[in-house]
Structures are given as structure tokens and as C-alpha cells.
């Protein structure tokens, strides 16, 4: 496949489209969405400060919690994903079996149920703070998906690379660390970016265990002021802005990595 053709492949993920190099020009979809959302919020606050400004003032600590949960979970999920991915391609039967079982079980259970389970069921044994158990639940769930991404990334590297490294006298471990993984990272990064954005949105589910994230702050405001429509409009726009912001960062990171493709 030519370099040009490769650039045309766009990940269809569960989140905002990650901007590509080819999306140049003044009116890209990303810019319209991002500045449109910011402009809409600014206009609403300016035109009707009564509900809208109050909502904006009420939710910032919720945004901080959403960030904490998302970033904590993604870092942990990448570690779990790397281990799981290596396990899935391992020839060691035990390691492979454990990793495969983990992926199959976790992928088959809804995230909401997992969050509930980790918080309330495990809570009876070990007392974990809500926010930490939220991070663990999200990381355990997304670690399974990430494991599959890592596995696919490693398997996409041509066999010859491994054979060449081995014939140069590297052992299996060196081959993986110095030859296979650096190449796999390029392949893995775009889908990881997608997972990241999906995780950010799914972090709203943790409001079920009384973590005061963006969604719960919004719901608290709405349920006291009875301004449901207005509050959820603002919450949706804030989620959109955060998501688009991160999709841009991921886009830039991808460009960096793919410079010498």
C-alpha cells in the first residue's frame, strides 16, 4: 500500500473523528464543531445568564473529576492492554489462556455493570474510595479492548522483521523491545486514540456510584433548579469541547509519529 493510500484510511471509532493531515483549510469539520460549541456556550451565557452562567459556575469541579478519571483510567488501561496484548500472542499457554479469558469475560459484560460490581461488591471486602474504584473499573474494561488493539498492532508487523532480528542474533525479548514494538506503536496509536475518546465519554457512567463527575454535577444542578433542558445542553456542549480538544491532540501525536513513514 502506498503512503498516500495509507493516509486515506480513517478509523471508524466510537468518538469524534481524529483530525488528519489532509484536513487542511480554514473550515474543517473539527474547527466548525469546536469553535461552534464554544461560541454556542458563550452566546447562551451572554444572552441568558440566569440559568446558563449558573450552570457553568456549578460544574467546573465535575470537569476536573472527569479528567482525573479519564486520564487515570487510560494510563492504567494502556499498561493492562500492553500486558494483555503480549499475553494474547504469547506461546506460553498459561499466560495466553489468562489473557484470553480476561478479554473474553470483560468484553462480554457492560461497563455499567462492571462499575457497579467493582464498587459495591468489592467494596464489602476492601474499602476503596469511589473515584479510585471508578478508575479501576474503567481501566479493567478498556484494558481488554486495548489488549486487542496491541495484539492486532503487533501481528500487523511483517514476519520478516522478526526473522531478520533473530538472524542478527537478538533474542526474543530484544526483538520485541527493539524491533517489533517500536513499529507496532505507529499502528496502535490511532485506535488507542479512539479508545481514549470513547473512554472519556463513558466516564459519565461513573456518576452511578456517586462520583461527582461532570454529568453528576449537571444532574445535581438540574434536579434542584428544574432546568433540565438547559443543563443538559451545556453538559453536552462541554463534553463535545473536551472530546474535540483531545481528538486534536491525538491527531497531532499521530502526525509526529508518522513523519518518517
Amino acid at each position: 500500500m502506498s503512503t498516500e493510500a495509507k493516509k486515506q484510511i480513517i478509523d471508524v471509532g466510537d468518538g469524534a473523528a481524529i483530525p488528519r493531515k489532509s484536513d487542511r483549510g480554514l473550515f474543517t469539520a473539527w474547527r466548525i464543531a469546536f469553535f461552534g460549541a464554544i461560541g454556542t456556550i458563550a452566546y447562551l451565557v451572554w444572552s441568558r445568564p440566569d440559568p446558563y452562567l449558573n450552570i457553568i459556575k456549578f460544574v467546573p469541579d465535575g470537569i476536573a473529576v472527569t479528567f482525573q478519571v479519564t486520564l487515570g483510567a487510560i494510563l492504567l488501561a494502556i499498561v493492562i492492554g500492553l500486558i494483555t496484548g503480549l499475553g494474547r500472542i504469547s506461546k506460553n499457554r498459561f499466560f495466553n489462556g489468562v489473557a484470553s479469558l480476561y478479554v473474553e469475560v470483560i468484553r462480554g459484560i457492560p461497563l455499567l455493570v462492571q462499575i457497579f460490581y467493582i464498587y459495591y461488591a468489592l467494596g464489602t471486602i476492601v474499602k476503596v474510595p469511589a473515584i479510585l474504584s471508578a478508575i479501576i473499573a474503567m481501566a479493567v474494561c478498556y484494558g481488554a479492548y486495548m489488549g486487542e488493539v496491541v495484539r492486532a498492532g503487533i501481528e500487523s508487523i511483517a514476519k520478516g522483521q522478526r526473522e531478520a532480528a533473530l538472524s542478527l542474533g537478538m533474542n526474543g525479548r530484544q526483538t520485541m523491545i527493539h524491533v517489533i514494538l517500536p513499529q507496532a506503536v505507529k499502528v496502535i496509536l490511532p485506535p488507542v486514540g479512539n479508545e481514549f475518546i470513547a473512554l472519556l465519554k463513558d466516564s459519565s457512567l461513573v456518576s452511578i456510584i456517586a462520583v461527582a463527575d461532570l454529568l453528576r454535577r449537571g444532574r445535581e444542578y438540574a434536579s434542584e433548579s428544574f432546568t433540565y433542558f438547559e443543563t443538559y445542553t451545556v453538559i453536552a456542549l462541554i463534553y463535545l469541547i473536551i472530546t474535540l480538544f483531545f481528538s486534536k491532540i491525538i491527531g497531532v501525536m499521530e502526525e509526529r509519529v508518522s513523519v518518517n513513514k
Partner: protein
Amino acid sequence: MKALRTLTAVLALGLCFVSAAFAAPKAITVASDATWPPMEFVDANKKIVGFDIDFMTAVAKEAGLQVTFKNTAWDGIFAGVEAGQYDAIISSVTITPERQAKYDFTTPYVQIGQILVVPKAEKGTKIADLKGKKVGAQIGTTGAMEVKKVAGVELKTYDEVGLAFEDMAAGRIAGVVCDEPTAITYALQKKEYSSKFKIVGKSFTKEAYGIVVKKGNKELVAQLNKGIAAVQKKKIDAQLKKKWQLK
């Protein structure tokens, strides 16, 4: 043939409307968040039961209404009546000035108050004694608003009050505030909790429940008020209070 079928359909439909207008009692849908025992909850047969449900059924009977209940999450239950997804709410809704500004209420039908439930080891007797600790309540309830008023206490809101009690059983929060009848059910009557929790002090607010309808639906309010008056006159509400062990 087709024309004939259409004609029959139109006739049947027309007949339905006519009969509905004249004969059958007016049918209304009433929303309830069935997570609030003993006022409204789902029993072992997956049926919504409780004092409010029995009371509403009695009121509807007196007022000549046909009532269907709809189990609805508390979070957004008011938005639903505003959007016309159901005609009324009976769900232990305290009449407050803020709510009255947005929705119409019937006459009050039960007097209750907020009360604090804590773990057995706790020495404090009011919310202010729990400074620096977390206190739970169901989101958007008067209980949550009471906790919020106390400076230095962190309010944790839950989708259902049962989850707050579960969190207290796990030792994550130091107290739960909710309506007295519900507190009694969870703290004293539930086997898993009665050895762990106690109710402290007396109820510290004076509140009354009302049935909620959409703002401006005067006709339904009048009809329901008539039903409530009849139920109270016949002392049916006293019997129901006894049945559901309310004070």
C-alpha cells in the same frame, strides 16, 4: 373492498372517541419512582406497591379516574410531567415553594419530615455533628437540600436512596438523610441493616407530600383534590397508614 375497510376503521375509531368521551372514566398515567419503601417500591411480584400507590388508587376511584402507574427514575421525573409523558406524579414529593413555582400540586396528603440515619457507633445526633465527613442522600430530594445547607459536611448524591444505605453499610459515608418512613424501613426493618444502623434525633423538617401535575392543568388538580377530600372523609387514608405502618 379497500374503501370499505377504511370506512370501517374510521367508524371504529370514531366510536372509540365517542365512548371514551361519554362512558369510560378518564384514564391518566401517574409516574412514581418505586425505590422509596414503604411509600412506593417494587415487590417480589414486580408490582409497584406502597402507601402512595394505594392512596392514589383510592383517590382515583373517588374522583372517577382510571389510573396506570409508570415506574420512573427520580432524576428527571419532573421533566417528564412537564414534557407530558405522564399526567401526574405520586412519589413522596414534598411541596416546596421552588417546586410550586414550576408545577402544580394537589392539597397535601401526608405530613413527614427528614431524619438522619447513621452507623451504630456514631455519636453525633444531627447533620452538623458530622462535620468533615460525607453524608449521602438521593439526588434532587429535600434530604439532599438539607445536607447541602450544613457547612463543612460533604454531600454525596445517589440515584437511589438504597445505594446510599449500601454505601454506608460499606463504611464509605457517615450518614444518610431521607424521609422518616423510608429511613425507618431501611434502618430498622431491613434485616441486613438493622444491626448496623440507627436513627438519631427526631425529624427536623416539617414537610407535606402532594401529587404533582403539569403547571396549568387546573382541571386535573381539581379532580384529584376532590378525590383526596373524599378519601380523607371516609378515613381510607388512616387505614392505609396503618397498613403501611406510618405514624
